[in-house]
């Protein structure tokens, strides 16, 4: 589809038919941050961020390196708890519950909010064991059907169905990343966080993941950090732009952000004037 871009479009936001249907759905907030600050020791990584993320949509977090977009993502499933010097102020509300309340067990939270990392990190186990891991730690026996469903959901089943017992590490980088997606969706979470999931992959493997995200969002809410603006424009419904200092500068429909941003700094960033 090589159509001539109108001059006022900064980046093409050509949408698929699915996405158009999706855009007509009303936004139901599933996750929200309220006045969120995050510090690493003395350094502020997130500066007073408030955002409402809609259910069953793809929300992209973009911004220059070090702008706090990954830190924000890791606040949502409390992976920042692993870092000793990290301190979080403010609320992250998941379905009405602040995940930083004292009675929230981060382990339970992460069973509802899955995550895919920048570098594919399958376990040094068989493909099958990688997929069933999430169910097994919850004490739920995984059936062949669960394995197939998760692998099909990650568009990997056709490629690996005859070698489920070989090591996940023998797969190619792109396949490993889809295995990690299968692993994340097998326990059927509600939200999937993706931290630059295609930046370590070649363009073909990356485009497979992008297509996959388009189908995942039918069942899950996807929040994706990316430094690739074209990718954000292609796959997301909503885009949040973070700028240096951990400030959320603008959050709106993706089309609005890329075609008609309200903040001049966002326009400068998108057109490559800085960042």
């Amino acid at each position: 589809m090589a159509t001539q871009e109108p001059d006022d479009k900064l980046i093409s936001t050509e949408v698929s038919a699915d996405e158009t249907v999706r855009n007509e759905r009303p936004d139901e907030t599933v996750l929200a941050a309220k006045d969120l600050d995050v510090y690493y020791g003395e350094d502020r990584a997130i500066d007073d961020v408030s955002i409402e993320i809609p259910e069953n949509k793809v929300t992209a977090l973009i911004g220059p390196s070090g702008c706090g977009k990954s830190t924000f993502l890791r606040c949502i499933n409390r992976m920042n708890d692993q870092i000793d010097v990290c301190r979080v102020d403010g609320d992250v509300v998941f379905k009405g519950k602040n995940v930083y309340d004292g009675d929230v067990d981060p382990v339970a939270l992460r069973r509802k909010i899955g995550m895919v990392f920048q570098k594919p990190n399958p376990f040094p186990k068989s493909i099958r064991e990688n997929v069933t891991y999430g169910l097994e730690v919850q004490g739920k026996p995984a059936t062949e059907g669960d394995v197939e469903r998760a692998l099909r959901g990650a568009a990997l089943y056709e490629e690996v169905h005859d070698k489920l017992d070989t090591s996940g590490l023998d797969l190619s980088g792109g396949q490993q990343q889809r295995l990690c997606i299968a692993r994340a969706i097998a326990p059927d979470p509600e939200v999937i966080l993706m931290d630059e999931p295609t930046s370590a992959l070649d363009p073909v493997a990356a485009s497979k993941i992008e297509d996959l995200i388009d189908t995942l969002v039918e069942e899950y809410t996807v929040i994706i950090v990316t430094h690739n603006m074209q990718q954000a424009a292609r796959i997301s419904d909503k885009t949040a732009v973070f700028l240096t200092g951990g400030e959320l500068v603008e959050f709106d429909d993706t089309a609005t952000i890329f075609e008609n941003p309200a903040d001049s700094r966002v326009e400068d960033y998108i057109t490559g004037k800085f960042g």
Partner: protein
Amino acid sequence: MSTPPMDELFGDIDLEWEHRKNRAFRSLCFLSSILGLAALALLIADVLWEAYRGVSEYDIGIIHFITSTGSVNPDRAGMYGALVGSVLLIVLASIMTFFIGVGAAIYLEEYAPDTRLVRLIDANLANLAGVPSVVYGLVCFGLLINGPLDLGRIILVGAIALALVVLPIIIVSAMEALRAVPDSVRNGSYAIGATRWQTIRRVVLPAAMPGIMTGTILAIANAWGQTAPLLMVGAIASARHVPTGPFDDITALTVTIFDWAFRFQDQFHVLAAMGIVGLLVVLLGMNMVAIYIRSRYEKELS
């Protein structure tokens, strides 16, 4: 176009001195490696020759040597009792150290907060691994035989002495194996809603196990060759004694070899050489198992 002469292009670069230094250093390194190997080869050749004399000159049957117990008469002396003692010592020491050692390593690597005390313990484990083994023997003698407890000169005390010798080695090597498991894999497990223990048991330990096993086997091979701590806790040599359990009198192969080597009859010296060959065969076997485990699982990580 003709090729310009070498001098025209590179004439201003003089590398002769650099190349000479390179050759000199290469020869030096080659010599060092050969010297080490040669010394080892000489030692093994000497022991093998002595042992061969035992079989040919004194007509000592290998089976007879392995199955008969020690005696003052060199014709009837064998390593059976000493071998049983050594095996008992090693098995007991392994049981005592493996779980404690791996447990300590897991705590220090996976659970312990990064405090000054933990860092102090961390740093001193390597020092403990370097303490001469005779010191551990003395400690056991002072505490368990000639001190608050008097357990006597039994296998168990020897095993405790050996356990003290190898414990820091096992902890340090297990910690290294755990550290080699990439954090990305741990995070993958936490991010899917696994607890810390689930992550350790299902992901980290299986991934680190080949490294832990290799380190443990090498540490136990080290214990197998220990003599000094066993002498300190009163191991008896070449008695007609075959130990039957942890509370029996202590005897060991290394101590028996030590004793034979200082007898005046030549036949005992030959017996010592045969004992050393037996000792080396077991050591070599353990090292080969360790190398096999390492090479078999090496590529599976990262």
